[in-house]
């Protein structure tokens, strides 16, 4: 067993009197007390003086971008669960990586976060950080007087960290605290206050005693947080996935039916969001494939979920399809004004062979196409089903698809009660003569 895990190739080079140096040595002692070898530990760090920790230890190491150390640590721990993953960051990393700190507290993956909190950005000239007291003199002029300092322990507790400690570099029991934090099975946060002699104490009076006094003036916190005790994340993740069934490979459509007409067919379904237009498009594609046709389905809708147009452009063709912007539909299903308005450009191009199947009241731009009204409402069909019902309308007319092709598509897409409900709904569709 080695007597230190410090890296003999890279001895520590912190400023004389820097609190980081003491934390480094306490952490080394903690590792040794726990009987850990270098390859059982990964030090993860980011930018700033705390970012030297990974180099000064002879352990696995990952040093990355400012504030992001917790993200690498999470990836490492999910893949290598037996590794002791210790993250160091400063109060700078705490600020820029705030979202990651909150996420880690909420998640409770078994990582240890040590924040080496010395109230300023040491490397860049002593600018103020999220933890700089308002009365301090720092390298950011008056700006730190305007921002309230962040107390990490309060943040971590409020966001779900199950182990939180606010402490001083100079506490006699720091090594014990670090050991307990590393041994804790879950996310542990240790906010370690200390002195930056290179910058902070040039203009501010700060001593181990004044740090101790200021910590004492706050509600002390060091250890497991009762309200936040729960199952560790990876263990909970593994429990959740244990019961999952493997998803089936993508379904293959058997081509056993005959399409009603030869050649390429293009169909535009112009509806509104919430009208199951995309599902109707999928059914039409599956129907075509059941008759040996190639299919593409290009959809258009807004990011709004239940508002705005929803459009599916389908191409069914006996040969593979290259360009799939639907240019010349033989059938246009016009279900809503929003959909028609979005595609108003296509109507002038429709020829006399084309057919528009329109819901009553939908305003159609002028075209040469034939128009048939589908009064699906009068057949007792809800508006959300009109897009699907229009396929039954087409099938009864032997237009683009046959009733058998539609049935095949339904059976591929739906199962059980849903399938029966869709079949019942489509059973109400009647194409009147004329």
């Amino acid at each position, binding site marked *: 067993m080695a007597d230190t895990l410090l890296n003999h*190739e890279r001895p520590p080079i912190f400023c004389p009197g820097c609190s980081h140096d003491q934390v480094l040595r306490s952490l080394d002692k903690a590792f040794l007390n726990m009987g850990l070898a*270098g*390859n059982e530990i*990964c030090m993860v760090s980011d930018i700033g003086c705390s970012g030297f920790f*990974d*180099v000064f230890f*002879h352990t*696995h*190491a*990952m*040093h*990355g*971008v400012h504030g*992001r150390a*917790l*993200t690498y*640590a*999470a*990836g*490492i721990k*999910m*893949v*290598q669960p*037996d*590794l002791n993953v210790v993250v160091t960051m400063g109060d700078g990393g705490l600020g820029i990586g705030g*979202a*990651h700190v*909150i*996420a880690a507290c909420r998640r409770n993956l078994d990582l240890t976060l040590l924040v080496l909190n010395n109230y300023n950005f040491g490397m860049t000239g002593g600018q103020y950080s999220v933890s700089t007291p308002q009365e301090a003199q720092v390298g950011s002029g008056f700006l730190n007087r305007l921002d309230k300092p962040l107390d990490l322990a309060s943040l971590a507790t409020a966001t779900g960290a199950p182990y939180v400690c606010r402490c001083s570099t100079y506490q006699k029991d720091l090594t014990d605290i670090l050991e307990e934090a590393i041994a804790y099975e879950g996310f542990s946060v240790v906010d370690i206050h200390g002195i930056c002699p290179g910058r902070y104490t040039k203009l501010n009076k700060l001593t181990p005693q004044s740090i101790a006094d200021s910590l004492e003036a706050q509600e002390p916190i060091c250890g497991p947080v009762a309200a936040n005790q729960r199952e560790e994340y990876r263990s909970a*993740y593994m429990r*959740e*996935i244990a019961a*999952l*069934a493997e998803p089936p490979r993508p*379904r*293959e*459509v*058997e*081509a056993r039916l005959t399409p009603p007409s030869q050649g390429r067919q293009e169909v535009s379904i112009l509806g509104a969001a919430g009208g199951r237009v995309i599902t109707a*498009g*999928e059914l039409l*594609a599956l129907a*075509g*494939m059941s008759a040996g*046709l*190639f*299919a*593409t*389905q*290009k*959809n*258009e809708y*807004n*990011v709004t979920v239940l508002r705005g147009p929803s459009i599916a452009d389908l191409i069914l063709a006996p040969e593979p*399809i*290259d*360009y*799939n*912007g639907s*240019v010349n539909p033989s059938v246009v299903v016009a279900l809503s004004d929003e959909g028609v308005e979005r595609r108003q450009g296509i109507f002038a191009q429709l020829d006399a062979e084309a057919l528009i199947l329109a819901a009553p009241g939908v305003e159609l731009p002028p075209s040469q196409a034939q128009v048939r009204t589908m009064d699906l409402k009068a057949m007792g069909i809800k508006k959300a089903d009109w897009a699907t019902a229009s396929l039954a309308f087409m099938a009864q007319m032997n237009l683009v698809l046959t009733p058998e092709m539609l049935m095949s598509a339904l059976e591929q897409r739906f199962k059980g009660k849903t399938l029966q409900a869709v079949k019942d709904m489509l059973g109400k569709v009647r194409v009147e003569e004329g």
Partner: protein
Amino acid sequence: MALSLMEGNEAVAWGAFDAGCRFFAGYPITPATTIYNTMLSLLPPAGGVVMQGEDEIASLGYCLGASMAGAKVMTATSGPGISLYSEHISFAIASEIPVVIIDVQRLGPSTGYATKGADGDIQFLRWGNTGGCTGIVLSPVDVADCYTLTIQAFNLAEVYRCPVFVASSKEIGMTRESVDLAALERPALRERALQPEGQAYMPFRPAPGTEVPYFAPIGGEVISRQTSSMHGENGYMTPVPGEIQALVERLDRKLIDEVDKFSFYELYEEEGSETLLITYGVTSRAAKEACREMTAAGRPTSLLVLKTLWPVPQGLIKNLAAGYQQIAVVEANLGQYVREIRRILPDKPVEFFGVMDGKLISPAEIKEALHG
């Protein structure tokens, strides 16, 4: 032949799964979200990990940690997410971390239009990192390519230890089409070269006869050291100009000098054609129709569809363009890749046609642009 109905994003996920990817982290964004959805249905039942990042920076950070721990990893986003990935793309390039990044491009600039496509990120994917060293960018044309090129992307990420992008688009990722799964090309899987046992580990020394270092996973027996800082072969920070230059040159050279080995393309040569049309992505589908129609109308036009965009497959393009009087480049942006074509073919007239209006470029527009 039996066909399956699938969108490009689902095909990417199946490609990743079949390539052995067992770690995915992502943040929801249209039009890439269905990759996340599909990975969530595929990986956990197979014992794999799916994480939703608190933001895109975290998503890629999770992937980099998991990759260094030895997993095959992937993330997926769209242009606004690539912006946030930038610092970790730089990390992955500098520190040779294998990762596959899917960019389902949407219409930009900025947050643009979430449900419309474009190929607006093509130069961004090459240059959106600090230091300017290159990664690899592959460009699918259809759903079948989404599957095959994702597997290729994993192979390349593993072999060359770098980020590999698949530059998909809303028009491929969210378009469903029939695809013959049994006929899909399934490249043989390749894995990163592991540190041989019993040797002192130099994490950034190229393995003998190659330009790529051996990999030792964080968490393995051998201590593995990773850093985003400028480093020497030993993985420690270095101020030595010679070591720095050697690293940055190797990072570029390991990909640029090898691009002939992964220059994916389709070529449709027409006898008598004086023009070679060059394109990529979903626009290739319109270009194929346009070239067929022009050829049938007595104006034979050849077509080169590039599926490796970065590093620029210079040898391939120069070689294939040699016999043509003129070159035409069509792309769904205001003129990005045409800059490369003009750079490597300085002696040929290179016409450009590009639109970025949220519609697919049509065969008619291409014919009009070429012949008026």
